[in-house]
């Protein structure tokens, strides 16, 4: 449980002089659920970009598991290692059916030949059904993903993330566009998933973060400002100053 899944050490990244990430260090244990909060421009999304191989840091170490260097890998490599990501804006394949969306996400060979020879097995169909039931889209199985509501797309994307069976889930503002009830269900879902998987959630919604009931990291100006339970960081005057106090 205490084994480290992801470790960032003194990471820097600037865009034309703007220091998006400035000396960020962070460690996520295997099976841990972690919430990351911070004002706009604190570097939350850039941090996810770096972890998923989309952006290369200027300096610093990003280590996966025991000794895999993530800074040298691209998105597909990182995904294959077991890092799953949900975007801030729900991103699904709009012109494919809901079940095909999940099918593409299912763990398995990502190669071209496999793609051409692929036949869907009964087990895969069952797994798709399972995932869709978890996210409450069992009835929408045959619909085009583009026809779903905003909230449903959020759920579908979370379902795809689950189907991918990653070791680490990076979830960027999942509650955006959801009803209160849905928000609470999402929090519950993420809590269930944690343990078997590591989960890192970025969120603005404080009720949601409270519902997650986990360790919270506050980012500001590209580095960690405070870390601890929500009550602990809420009491930190600096945090109140930059974030909560507004």
């Amino acid at each position: 449980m205490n084994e480290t899944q992801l470790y960032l050490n003194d990471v820097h990244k600037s865009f034309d002089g703007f220091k998006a990430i400035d000396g960020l260090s962070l460690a996520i244990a295997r099976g841990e659920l972690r919430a990351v909060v911070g004002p706009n421009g604190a570097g939350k999304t850039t941090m996810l970009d770096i972890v998923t191989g989309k952006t290369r840091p200027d300096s610093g170490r990003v280590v996966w598991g025991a000794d895999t260097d993530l800074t040298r890998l691209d998105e597909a490599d990182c995904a294959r290692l077991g890092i799953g990501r949900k975007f801030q804006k729900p991103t699904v394949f709009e012109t494919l059916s809901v079940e095909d969306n999940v099918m593409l996400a299912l763990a398995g060979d990502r190669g071209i030949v496999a793609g051409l020879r692929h036949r869907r097995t009964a087990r895969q169909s069952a797994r798709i059904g399972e995932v869709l039931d978890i996210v409450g889209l069992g009835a929408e199985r045959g619909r085009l993903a583009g026809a779903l509501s905003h909230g449903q797309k959020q759920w579908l994307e979370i379902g795809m993330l689950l189907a991918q069976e990653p070791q680490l889930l990076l979830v960027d503002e999942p509650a955006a566009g959801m009803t209160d009830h849905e928000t609470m269900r999402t929090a519950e879902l993420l809590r269930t998933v944690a343990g078997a998987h590591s989960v890192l959630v970025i969120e603005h919604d404080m009720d949601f973060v409270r519902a997650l009931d986990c360790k919270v990291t506050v980012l500001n100006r590209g580095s960690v400002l405070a870390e601890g339970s929500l009550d602990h960081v809420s009491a930190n005057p600096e945090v109140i100053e930059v974030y909560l106090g507004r």
Partner: protein
Amino acid sequence: MRRLLPLLTLLCLAFGPLPALSQSLEALIRQLPEGSFSDRAEVVAAIAATLDERAVGVLEALGEGDLHQRKADGAILKVTGRGSKARAFDPLTGEELGPVPARSTTAIKVNNALRRAVRSGIATLTLMHRDPTRRLAAANAAFQSADPDQLEALGAALAAEQDASVAEAIAQAQAAALLASDADPALRVEAIETVRARGGRDALAVLTPLRASEVPLIAEAAAAAVAEIERSQAMWARAQNVWFGLSLGSVLLLAAVGLGITFGVMGVINMAHGELIMLGAYTTFVTQELIRGHAPGLFDWSLAIAAPLAFLVAGGIGVAMERGIVRHLYGRPLETLLATWGVSLILQQTVRSVFGPTNREVGNPSWMSGAFQLGEMTVTLNRLTIILFALVVFAGLLVLLRRTPFGLRMRAVTQNRPMAAEMGIRTGWIDAMTFGLGAGVAGLAGVALSQIDNVSPNLGQSYIIDSFLVVVFGGAGNLWGTFAAAFSLGIVNKFLEPVAGAVLAKILVLVFIILFIQKRPRGLFPQRGRAVEA
């Protein structure tokens, strides 16, 4: 020592054949058949000393062996042709005197020594001509012939010369002649220096053989001088290439800068951009036709009149395109590409139907014709005008975008459309105006291109690919990038051309850009900021 030589020759010339000098040209000519060859050489020198223009023809005829003496009266004639076709001319006036009966004349014999004297005499006569341009031409001719026999004449001419530039040319010719002689090596080394200072291809022709001279001192100096001249020639060749490159670059800039706005700033692909350029060129054609028909006196102003018209015509069509078509396709760049391509076909065929498929004649105003010489490179006025025009258009656009309320609104709309709309900016209107501006600039480009390219319905097609590549190469959204890309591609192209040929150079540039875009998809000067990275 070098300065003494011409003085000495002048003295010889002045006092040696003194008796002959005082006689008239006519009398001297009559003496030509007399005496030994060396006597005749003296007479030739005396003839040259008269500095009479008419003497040139006489001496030339003598050198060719065409000068005859009539047996009957001893008159000197110039005879051309042989046998029954032989005709006589007055050697001084060139007046024809009729056919020459066979064996009625005897040719004045010349040997090599006499020929040398003749050449020297002719050189003296032309070098001493009263017209400085003739003297300069003679000096240059003497430089090229580099004849040691003319040394005396050159020296005399140099001493008498008043005009500084002619004197310089004569001194160079003298140096060249000296180099062909077997004068003192030290003198010749000095002469090499004089010839080197002249530079150019002629100097190279004189000096190159000297590198093989048996005198080590001369061979060395000549080799050094040749290397120096070649360096300078290479430099001028480079300068000329840069000039051609700037010229091509200005054309590319004009063609591309409008796209730099529609594609680079707005992100809209306008495949009809080339046809808007073509319309600008046809507007120029129509304007000139009207001026020719109604106010020929205004012809020199035709381009100045056509430019705003072309801007309005192309800009108007641009606004219409934006409102009618492009507006419906925002956010769908590939569809925009296809629809505007359709517009380009329609515009092309319209022009073809109205003006016919062949090239139309667009004239150069008189102030744009001609050229001047800069060092060893030729600068044509129309190219120069186009470069200046491109720079003015570019600067105008920069000012418009950066320093005017319109530019501010335009940038606001392209950067954050919803917020701009919130602030009360009529985004639709700004879109239309921006697109119209890009199109109008294409029209201006057409005015300039009508001066150097064929004005035909296909004019636009030849520019569209280049224009896009320039914008993409420079980095979309950055007008300075377009500027740098246009000129650097123009110059690279012109430097490749002498090596690879025009077509291959173009292919190489295309391949280079294709590879470059794959290495740096955002061009030379990418748009900055995190938004782009994401």
